[in-house]
């Protein structure tokens, strides 16, 4: 019985690791290429507000966080063109407002209070089937969006104004993509947690970017490096009995340093040989 339970956990965790690598590999490429890491950090922490509100009203906290983050994301995108307030200051406010709301709502909810650590640092070993469904559907949607809309995503990311002069649906693409960013963040909170999710969205891309300058290749390599990172991190966490989210992030960053070393040798080794 115990073994069967463990087997169930492991399958769920493996699926979560695979879907995390796919969704973050693709959507992270959009984030990194557009230099939206700070916005993404803001959304990540804002989503904690949604978790608290969801908890308070007795709905699934991840659904609460998804709704909250998508609304926040669309808001940021809508007002990012106005110069009235500095965008980074608005994001910083949203960042801490989310955390504040989360804590307040969790505190005033009577009775059982959830394990905050699991939201902050993730717990891939206890993901539910519903979480897996969310991640799976998000991965599928990301694959479809990036293969069908590859060109328009690339053109809008590179030069919005020029894309507008070609009558491309710039605003629609931006709204769609920022919503995907918000969902990728929220659903992956289960895997590595609020504090660590940004690394899943940026480290694989940084590794890929060391070896290729083509958007398409970065998409593919990011998913692959992400897979290696999440799966080996998960295995290490399982066998060493240490926290999974932190291990995955540690492995990914270790991979980045190894890759940088390889890249350095590639550049300098050649010169040394000649």
């Amino acid at each position: 019985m115990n073994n069967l339970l463990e087997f169930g956990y492991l399958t769920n965790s493996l699926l979560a690791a695979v879907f995390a690598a796919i969704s973050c590999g693709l959507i992270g490429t959009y984030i990194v290429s557009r230099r939206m890491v700070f916005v993404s950090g803001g959304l990540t922490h804002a989503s904690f507000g949604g978790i608290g509100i969801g908890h308070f009203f007795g709905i699934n906290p991840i659904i609460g966080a998804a709704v909250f983050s998508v609304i926040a994301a669309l808001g940021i995108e809508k007002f990012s063109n106005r110069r009235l307030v500095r965008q980074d200051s608005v994001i910083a406010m949203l960042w801490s407002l989310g955390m504040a709301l989360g804590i307040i709502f969790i505190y005033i909810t009577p009775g059982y209070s959830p394990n905050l650590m699991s939201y902050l640092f993730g717990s891939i070993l206890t993901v539910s089937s519903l979480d897996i469904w969310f991640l799976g559907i998000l991965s599928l949607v990301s694959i479809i969006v990036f293969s069908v809309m590859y060109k328009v995503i690339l053109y809008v990311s590179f030069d919005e104004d020029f894309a507008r002069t070609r009558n491309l649906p710039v605003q629609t693409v931006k709204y769609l993509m920022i919503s995907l960013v918000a969902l990728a963040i929220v659903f992956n909170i289960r895997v590595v947690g609020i504090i660590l999710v940004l690394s899943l969205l940026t480290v694989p891309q940084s590794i890929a970017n060391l070896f290729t300058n083509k958007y398409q290749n970065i998409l593919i390599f990011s998913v692959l490096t992400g897979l290696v990172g999440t799966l080996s991190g998960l295995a290490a966490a399982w066998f060493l009995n240490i926290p999974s989210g932190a291990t995955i992030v540690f492995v990914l960053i270790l991979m980045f340093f190894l890759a940088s070393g390889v890249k350095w040798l590639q550049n300098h080794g050649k010169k040394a040989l000649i």
Partner: protein
Amino acid sequence: MQKLVELKNVTAGYENEIAIENADFSVYEHDFIGIIGPNGGGKTTLLKVMLGLQRPWKGSVEYYLDGGGQNLIGQMGYLPQINKFDDKFPVSVYEVVRSGLATPKKLFSRFSKEDNTRILETLQDLGISHLKEKSIGELSGGQKQRVFLARAIVSEPKLLFLDEPNTYVDNKFEAELYEMLHYLNQRMAIVLVSHDLGTISAYIKSIVCVNKSVHYHDSNTISEEQLSVYNCPIQLITHGTIPHTVLKSHSHE
């Protein structure tokens, strides 16, 4: 001559600040207009209003290109200021130029063979075929300007807008650029924003001075008196046997 774009008493700006006021002029076929004015004077805003990227607060911009109205795809080429680009952005020269042929209809289909031929021809015309596979960050300032010029003209527009194409480039490239524009001017009208019209003034046909107020000057020579009437503090352009630039002295600088 056929009228391409007409600005009727256009006022535009950002938030609560007016950037340009009462712009009232037209661009015709084969025009070569130089837009000059001090930094922050509203040159780029004027360009964006003409491109339809920014809506005027007052007045209107009317297009007389084929199809008219909103259907302007492929008829206006645009070369923005290159300093706004992210050098690390992972995109190849070929992809950048190809985006100049993008249309909403073509987004979900593959580009055609004709498109590919056109891209390669344009790259060749501008002497950058060998850079095709390079990513944009690996290029020099002059090479980048060529790539963005290629992107702007690959669709054979009737009207070409250039925003300071002579920044971040050396004198040799600048001279080549003006020759290229002179050549392109045979098949398209050109509107060029520049902080320095000295060397190009021989090819320009008319001048627009922008310093919040917008004045159309139907000649490629302009005197100091005229500039001061236009309230347009900028370096002065004169014509000799060789086109040259005379800098106006600024006591406060």
